[in-house]
């Protein structure tokens, strides 16, 4: 139901053509569309009703992300509506409530600044937040900050005296230099320098030296929604590919009659079905038993990563030469899948998480 409603809107307002136009115009954000999504309640999907949200939960957020993935929608949904909203929900004060309200209304966007090297590893954070007076000074570098060049606010993970601390600061604060990167998937991502950036105690989300109470659920929510989006990317690429098999002729016949291609397509469908189960399970687990959702989330992200990779590879292969051209959409799926594979932990990271939970 939710999926159908979302599909109806996206087919009209955000087909792949919309992404292509955005890219061709050198843009990475469509502010008007985000406002429309907010008006439909998507920005507030995880925001409590008391703060103006619709509070539908992680499974529903996954459904939306999945539909957006199918047509490569560009929006701050994951960074803002999922990751930031989940973090803020784990802080119960009036400031967080106000921040959540601004997310739900579409008036504030966020980006998560965690990565410092080319691989996701929050525990190895080196950026420092040095105590000074009643506040802190943040110094260091972040990379692969998705939505980071345009977001209004940044969630920044930094090392404090006795642990890690999460800061929520405006992106235009003095000392912050944002360098938008030219990404393969044509979306917003930035390298960000923090040079002695001032932060007050009010800027801390949760407790000092205890970032993970707030950040872990936020990251897991993001990973689950990203898995859903990537499953959508796989489904979108698959749909294009099967469509092509039914219309392209070679050797005087539809290429979809060739058993070699039929079996590749059928195998891919199987992988997509299996991944769909893992994605569904992760969303439900986050809604029903969030304390113990780590394995379910990692399972979903690992499966979605490998399935999306297969889907785009098979997509290009079965399209043949035309799949290599920029004029054709399948290449967009390939690039989106590669970026999604790295964001918030790659296949190896998540497979290791699963193994750890399974006792090896």
């Amino acid at each position: 139901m939710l999926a159908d409603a979302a599909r109806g809107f996206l087919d009209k307002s955000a087909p792949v053509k919309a992404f292509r136009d955005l890219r061709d115009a050198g843009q990475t954000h469509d502010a008007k569309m985000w406002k429309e999504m907010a008006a439909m309640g998507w920005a507030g999907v995880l925001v409590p009703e008391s703060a103006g949200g619709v509070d539908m939960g992680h499974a529903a957020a996954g459904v939306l992300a999945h539909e957006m993935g199918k047509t490569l929608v560009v929006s701050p949904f994951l960074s803002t509506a999922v990751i930031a909203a989940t973090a803020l929900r784990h802080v119960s004060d009036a400031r967080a409530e106000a921040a959540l309200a601004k997310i739900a209304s579409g008036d504030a966007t966020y980006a998560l600044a965690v990565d410092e090297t080319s691989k996701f590893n929050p525990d190895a954070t080196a950026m420092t937040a040095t105590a000074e007076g009643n506040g802190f000074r943040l110094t260091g570098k972040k990379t692969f900050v998705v939505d980071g060049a345009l977001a209004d606010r940044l969630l920044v993970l930094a090392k404090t005296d006795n642990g890690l601390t999460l800061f929520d600061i405006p992106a235009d604060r003095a000392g912050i230099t944002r360098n938008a990167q030219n990404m393969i998937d044509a979306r917003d991502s930035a390298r960000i320098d923090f040079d002695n950036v001032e932060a007050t105690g009010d800027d801390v989300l949760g407790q000092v030296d205890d970032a993970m109470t707030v950040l872990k659920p936020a990251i897991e929510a993001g990973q689950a929604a990203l898995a859903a989006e990537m499953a959508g990317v796989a489904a979108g690429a698959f749909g294009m590919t099967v469509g092509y098999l039914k219309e392209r002729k070679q050797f005087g016949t539809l290429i979809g009659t060739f058993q070699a291609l039929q079996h590749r397509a059928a195998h891919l469908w199987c992988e997509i079905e299996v991944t769909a189960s893992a994605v569904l399970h992760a969303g439900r687990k986050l809604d029903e038993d969030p304390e113990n959702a780590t394995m379910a989330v990692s399972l979903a992200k690992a499966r979605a990563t490998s399935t999306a990779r297969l889907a785009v590879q098979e997509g290009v292969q079965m399209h043949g030469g035309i799949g290599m051209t920029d004029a054709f959409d399948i290449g967009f799926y390939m690039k989106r899948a590669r970026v999604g594979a790295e964001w918030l932990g790659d296949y190896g990271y998540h497979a290791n998480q699963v193994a750890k939970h399974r006792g090896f």
Partner: protein
Amino acid sequence: MQSDQELKHFRAELREWLEANCPAEMRGGEPSEASVCWGGKSFEFESDAQRVWMERAASKGYTVPTWPVEYGGAGMNRAQEKIFIEEMDRIEARSPLQSFGIWMLGPALLHFGTHEQKLHYLPPIARGEIRWCQGYSEPGAGSDLASVQTKGEDKGDHWLVNGQKIWTSYADKADWIFALIRTDRDAPKHKGISFLLIDMEDEGVETRPIKLISGASVFCETFFTNVQVPKEQIVGDENRGWDVAKYLLTHEREMISGGGQGLSGGRALGAVLNESLAEGQEMDTVLRADAMRCEVDALAIGLTLERYKDQAEAGTGAGDASAMLKYMGTELNMQRHELLMAAGGSDALEWDGPLGNRPADWLRTKANSIEGGTSEVMLSIISRRVLGLPG
């Protein structure tokens, strides 16, 4: 639908019963083909505990928990069945009874059988008294199953059956066989088949085991020479046996995929692999990576089986998607056994060596991607019926 309170009560009672009644010897251990309780007239229990466990479970309907009580089951709904599986897993209880009667014939009878047939055939299956085998394939009808030639001539009150079946798993140990018999030679090949139930003790039924690469003889050849099969031993309508056969195949495929816990266990692969390594030895990087991939896929495929079972209760069975479950589940199981062999090293190379049945189990899995429809047949089914790709 029951309240949470009722389900909680159900769980508590079940847990108590399992604690009290599942013998210690019937808990834990990697499931192996050799430790399965198959039941049947000639079944030799590996231990008293195995027999006792089967009998106790059967007395509560727990050998076939979802079947109606009047047919020997416990009448569990999907929510209760989930709890049952969880509680069995919790104490690592072995399945008290597994059989083709439970996995295949039972569901087909429940769907197509008359009330009398259900009352007559199902309870002995549930109690492990009668063991069934499947007479589908023939020397000339493998992947092309519908071209069966074993014929049944209409003789008024009975069919006179003549022909040969092959790959009839455990036919030498089975008491009865359900078989596809051509009862109309002039009809198109899918339309002239009937689904008959035949007593293996009848005159004219002969079976010969085929020795396999695993050293075991799980598959047989079965011959029918002028076997008289009473007319009431047909399931479904005359010449409509293909409908029954197809329905049964979807259950068989789900079973082979792991849904019946027949071939894959619930334990973490990594833990099992660790146990098989020599003392002080660590899993090498490649084995560990393969094991992780396999574990990720196993968990996701397990969730997929559950998802389809949930849908089945909501009224939409796996249908053509059972081909996906079969394909993914068996390919995974074969991969799993490859890793078990790799972890076992040279210890896994001896028949009845330090790792017991491991090599035989490994070789047995090589049939997984063939039996019940090959992987390629599964992919063709998906391509045509699910994806709608042109013939």
